[in-house]
C-alpha cells in the first residue's frame, strides 16, 4: 500500500505535527489545546491501523525497512604499521527502522493507548500546552523503541521516553509526585546504565566488522542489529569467535563469561522496566502518584518496552544463555505473579491493587518467554497486548472515578453502580478480562503462556496458575466493593461518563473483546515471526549445546 513511502518514519514523527500545532496555540486556550492534541494522536493511530492491515503475514522478515546514514565517527587509523591497506575505521550508528510481527502489534498498541490517553487527559487541570507537548514527545519515543533496529537508536528512543515521563509525573501527578518522578528517573536511569554498558560492549565486540573491497580494508563498529546478529551467529569467521588460543589479546572476542554478563545486565536493564520483582518499587510509586492518563501510557506501553527489549536484545542476542537460564526466568516470573497477587490482596487503594496486578501480569509474560516454545512466546506477546489494553482501560476508569469521587480508596467507595452505571459496567468488564475470563483477551494470553510453559516446566506452571486464583479474588473484591453495596451520601448525584470519556472506554473494551473472540487478528501477523524466532533459537541452542 505504501510503496517506497517511509511509513515508519511518518508514524514515528507524526506527533511532531501536533507539537507544532500546539506551540502555535496560546497557552490559556485549554479547549483548543485538548482538541488539537486528541486530533494529533489520532493521526498516528490511523496510520498505525493502515500499517496493521498492510502488514504481510506470510513472512518473518523485517518489513518497511528504512535505513539512513547518520553518525559515522571516524577513528584514528594509526593502528600499527602492518595495516597500511586500512582505508577506513569508524563507528557507524544509522537511522534504521523496521518492524516484524513482534513489534507491529506493539506499535499499534502504542498508537491506540496514546490516543485513548489523550482522551483521558481531559481531566488535566493545568498547563495543558506543556502537558500535551511532553505527551506527544513521549509518543515519539515509544514508537521509536518499537521500530529501531540499531542499538544506538534504540537506546536514544528508550531514553527519550524517560524525560517526558519525568515531567508528566512530576508536574501533573498527585501529592507525592516529585518523589515519584525522582524514583522513576533514578531506577530507569540505572536500567539505562546497565543497558548502555551492555549495548556498547556488544557494539565493540559483535558489532565489529572487517571488510575488504579490492585491496582496501575497512574496519567498522556498527550498532545495527542485523550486523550484530550476523557476526554473532552467521559469520563464524568473525573475530568475536576467535578465542585467546587463536588470537591472543583479541579485543573483539566475546567469551562465554562475557556473554553471560551481558545477558544478565540486559535482564536487569529490561527487568527494571518490566518490572521484575526486586526492581518494582518505583513503578508502584508512579502508578499511584501520576495522573491516570499518564499511568495509562506507563502501564499500557512503557512496561511493555521492558519485555520487548528483553526478547529482542536479551534473548535473541544471547539465546544459549537465555535458554540455559529459562528455569531461572520462569522462577522470576512465578515470583512476580505470586508476589504481585498476594500484595494486591492486601491493598485497599484501587490504584495500588492495579499496580500490583500489573506486576503479577507481567510475571505471566516472563513465564511465556521462559517456555521457549512457540505457544509460550505467542502467549507472552498476547499478554503484552492484552495487559496493555486492560490496564489502560482500568486507569482510564480510575481517572474518571477519581474525577468524581476524589479518592481511590476502595473502603471509601461503594455502590457506585447506582449513580455511575456506565463506568461501573466497564469496570466490571475490565475486571473480567483481567482475571482471565474466556472470550476476553486476558484468557487467551494467559492460557497460551501457561500452556507453553507446561510443556517444559509443569510444576512451575502449576504454581504460577495459583496466581490466577488470587487475581480473581482481588480484582473481583475491588470491583464489587466499588460498584455495589451502600452508596455513600457524598457520591449521590454523580454524573456518568461524558462522551469524551466514553469513547476511549468503548474503544479499548472493543479491542479487548475482539482479541478474546477473534485472536487471529493478533496471531496472524505474529505467526511467522514467532515460529521463525522459535525455530531459530532452537537451532542456535542445538549448535551451541
Amino acid at each position: 500500500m505504501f510503496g517506497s513511502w517511509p511509513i515508519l518514519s511518518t508514524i514515528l514523527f507524526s506527533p511532531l505535527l501536533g507539537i507544532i500545532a500546539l506551540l502555535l496555540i496560546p497557552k490559556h486556550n485549554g479547549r483548543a489545546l485538548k482538541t488539537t492534541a486528541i486530533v494529533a494522536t489520532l493521526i498516528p493511530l490511523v496510520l498505525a491501523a493502515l500499517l496493521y492491515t498492510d502488514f504481510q503475514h506470510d513472512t518473518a522478515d523485517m518489513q518497511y525497512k528504512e535505513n539512513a546514514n547518520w553518525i559515522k565517527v571516524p577513528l584514528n587509523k594509526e593502528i600499527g604499521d602492518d595495516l597500511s591497506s586500512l582505508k577506513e575505521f569508524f563507528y557507524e550508528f544509522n537511522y534504521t527502522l523496521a518492524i516484524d510481527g513482534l513489534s507491529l502489534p506493539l506499535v499499534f498498541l502504542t498508537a491506540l493507548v496514546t490516543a485513548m490517553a489523550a482522551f483521558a487527559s481531559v481531566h488535566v487541570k493545568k498547563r495543558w500546552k506543556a502537558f500535551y507537548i511532553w505527551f506527544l514527545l513521549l509518543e515519539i519515543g515509544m514508537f521509536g523503541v518499537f521500530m529501531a533496529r540499531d542499538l544506538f537508536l534504540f537506546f536514544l528512543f528508550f531514553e527519550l521516553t524517560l524525560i517526558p515521563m519525568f515531567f508528566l509525573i512530576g508536574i501533573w501527578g498527585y501529592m507525592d509526585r516529585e518523589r515519584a518522578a525522582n524514583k522513576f528517573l533514578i531506577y530507569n536511569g540505572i536500567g539505562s546504565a546497565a543497558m548502555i554498558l551492555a549495548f556498547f560492549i556488544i557494539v565493540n565486540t559483535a558489532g565489529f566488522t572487517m571488510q575488504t573491497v579490492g585491496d582496501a580494508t575497512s574496519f567498522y563498529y556498527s550498532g545495527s542489529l542485523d550486523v550484530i546478529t550476523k557476526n554473532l551467529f552467521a559469520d563464524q569467521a568473525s573475530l568475536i569467535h576467535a578465542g585467546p588460543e587463536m588470537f591472543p589479546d583479541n579485543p573483539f572476542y566475546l567469551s562465554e563469561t562475557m556473554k553471560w554478563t551481558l545477558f544478565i545486565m540486559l535482564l536487569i536493564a529490561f527487568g527494571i522496566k518490566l518490572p521484575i520483582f526486586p526492581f518494582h518499587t518505583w513503578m508502584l510509586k508512579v502508578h499511584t502518584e501520576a495522573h491516570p492518563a499518564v499511568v495509562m501510557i506507563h502501564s499500557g506501553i512503557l512496561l511493555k518496552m521492558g519485555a520487548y527489549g528483553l526478547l529482542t536484545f536479551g534473548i535473541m542476542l544471547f539465546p544459549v544463555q537465555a535458554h540455559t537460564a529459562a528455569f531461572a526466568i520462569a522462577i522470576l516470573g512465578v515470583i512476580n505473579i505470586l508476589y504481585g497477587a498476594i500484595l494486591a490482596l492486601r491493598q485497599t487503594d484501587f490504584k495500588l491493587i492495579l499496580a500490583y496486578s500489573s506486576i503479577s501480569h507481567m510475571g505471566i509474560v516472563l513465564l511465556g518467554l521462559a517456555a521457549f516454545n512457540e505457544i509460550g512466546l505467542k502467549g507472552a506477546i498476547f499478554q503484552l497486548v492484552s495487559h496493555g489494553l486492560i490496564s489502560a482501560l482500568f486507569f482510564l476508569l480510575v481517572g474518571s472515578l477519581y474525577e468524581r469521587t476524589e479518592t481511590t480508596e476502595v473502603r471509601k467507595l461503594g455502590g457506585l453502580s447506582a449513580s455511575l452505571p456506565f463506568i461501573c459496567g466497564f469496570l466490571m468488564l475490565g475486571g473480567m478480562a483481567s482475571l482471565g475470563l474466556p472470550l476476553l483477551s486476558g484468557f487467551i494470553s494467559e492460557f497460551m503462556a501457561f500452556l507453553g510453559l507446561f510443556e517444559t516446566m509443569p510444576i512451575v506452571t502449576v504454581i504460577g496458575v495459583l496466581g490466577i486464583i488470587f487475581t480473581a479474588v482481588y480484582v473481583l473484591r475491588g470491583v464489587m466493593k466499588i460498584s455495589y453495596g451502600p452508596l455513600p451520601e457524598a457520591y449521590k448525584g454523580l454524573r456518568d461518563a461524558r462522551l469524551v470519556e466514553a469513547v476511549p472506554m468503548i474503544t479499548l473494551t472493543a479491542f479487548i473483546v475482539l482479541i478474546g473472540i477473534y485472536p487471529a487478528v493478533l496471531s496472524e501477523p505474529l505467526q511467522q515471526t514467532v515460529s521463525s524466532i522459535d525455530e531459530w533459537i532452537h537451532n542456535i541452542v542445538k549448535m551451541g549445546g
Partner: protein
Amino acid sequence: MDQLQRLTAGDLVHLAPELTLVISAIVLSLLDLFMPRSFNRTVLGWLALVSVGISAVFVLGDISALNRIDDATGLVLPTEPVSLLGGSWRVDDYANLFKLLFLGGTALILFMSIGNVKEDEIPHKGEFYYLFLPATIGAMVMASSGDLITLFVGLELLSITSYVLVGMRKKSFSSNEAAFKYVVMGGISSAVILYGMSFLYGMSGSTNLAEINRALSANYAAFEPLIYVSFFLLLAGFGFKIAAAPFHMWAPDVYQGSPTPVTAYLAVVSKAAGFAITFRVLYSVFGLGGLISQQIHTDAFTATMVVAAAAMIFGNFIALRQKNMKRLLAYSGIANAGYLLVPIGTQFGMVHFSNFSEMFFYLIAYLFMNIGAIAVYMIVSDSSKSEDISAFAGLYYRAPATAVAMVVLILSLAGLPVTGGFFGKLYIMLGTLQLQHYWLAAIMIGTSVISFYYYFSIIRQMFLRSGEVEAEIKSSPTAQITVWICVAATLLTGFFPHVVLRYIETIFSVPIDLFIS
C-alpha cells in the same frame, strides 16, 4: 652558544595568535589607564572580543598551513609541526585545536559578561575584561609547549591571572577569600608540579619533553623509584589544576566566590588548559618509547584511571548535597574532570588511538553546556540576588524560553540524549570498552546516573516549583544570545557529532602531532 635558537620573521607568523593577544592586552590596559573616568569601559570588552577573534583567525590560518589539501586527491596531507626555539615551542594540530577551544570559550565568556559587569561589585570593569586575555595566552602557551619551562610559565600565567580574576569583586569578602584560597592551593600545586619536574630534569638533564622521554627510556632501570615519585607528583599537581578528586578541595570555594563569568572561565578554559598539559606530559614523557613496555608505564596509566574514577565518584556524590548553584557546578566540574581523565588514563590499545578526539570532543561539549548553564545561572541570580538552586524556582513561569534552554543544557550535563554531553560521554565510554576497562566504564555510567538526581533537581525547581516572585526576568541580550549559542551548539554536537569528530580526525594525527620528536 650554538644551542641558542633565534626566531625569524617567518617564525613570528606561528606566534601570531599569542602575539595578537599580548599586544591587545597591553593596548587595552593602556587604553583603560588613559581613558577618562567617565568613559564607559564596556567598549574594552568588545575590543577584547575582537582581539580574541583575530587570534582565532591566525590559529585557523596555522591549521590550514599545517594541513595542506592535496590538489590531486583532495586528501589532507599533514605536514610536520613547526618547532621553534629549540623544541620548546610547538605549533601542531594538538596545540592549535586546543587554542581554538580556549579562544572560543574565552570569546563566549567575554561576550556573556559584556553588559553584565556591575560597577558596584567589580570596581575595575576595564581590567575585568582585559585580564581574560593574558589568562588565555597562558592557556595557549601551555598547549603549545614542548618544554617544561615553557609549560610552567604558561601554567603560571594562567594561574596568576585567574587568581586576580577570582578576587575581582574587591569589596566582597567571599570573593577575597576565594581568591586567597585559590592562591594558596594553586601555589601548593605549582610547587608540587615543579618538584616532580625537578626530578624529571634531574634524571634526564633536559627540560625538553622528548629528550626526557628518551633519557628515561634509556636508563629507567637506574631511576625506577624516582620515575614513580615524579609521576605521582605531577599527577597530583595536574590533578589540582584540573580539579580532579582527591585534589579538588579548592574548586567549590573558588567557584562560589568568583564573579560568575570567572567561574565559567575556571570551569572551562582553565580546566581545558590543564587537560592540554596533562595529556601532553603524560603521553610524551610516560607514554612513549622504551617506557611503554615497562611496568612503570602500566602503573602510571592505571593510577590516572584511578584518579579519574575517584573524581567521578567524589564529584557526583558530593554534588548531591549541594544547595548553592556554583558549588554544585564545581562538583559537577570535578566529576567531569574524571570523565575527561578517562581517555587519558586508558592509553592506546591495539585498535584504539582516538584518545585525543575522545577527550577533545567532550571538552567541546563541556564548554558549551557549562558556559550555557552558567549564563543561565547568571541571568537567574542577577534577578533574584540569590546563589541557591532555589533561585531557579518557577523559572518556567518567569522566563519560559530560558528555562527550556536550561533543560537542554542540563540534559547535556547529565549525559542524556540527544546532546553533545551525551555523545561525548558515550564516545569516551566506547573507547574504554574497546580497551576492555569495563570497571571504568561501569563507574562512568553509574556515576552519571547518580548525577541525574542533582541535575534534575534544577529542572524540578524550574518546572515543578513556583518561586516567590512571578515577575518576568529581564536579562541582557548578550547573556541571552550566549545561552542560545550554547544550546544550539549542544544540540548540534549531539545530533551530528561525526562532523566535529571528522574534522578533528582529519587534521589530527597521533604520530605527527602528539609525539614530540
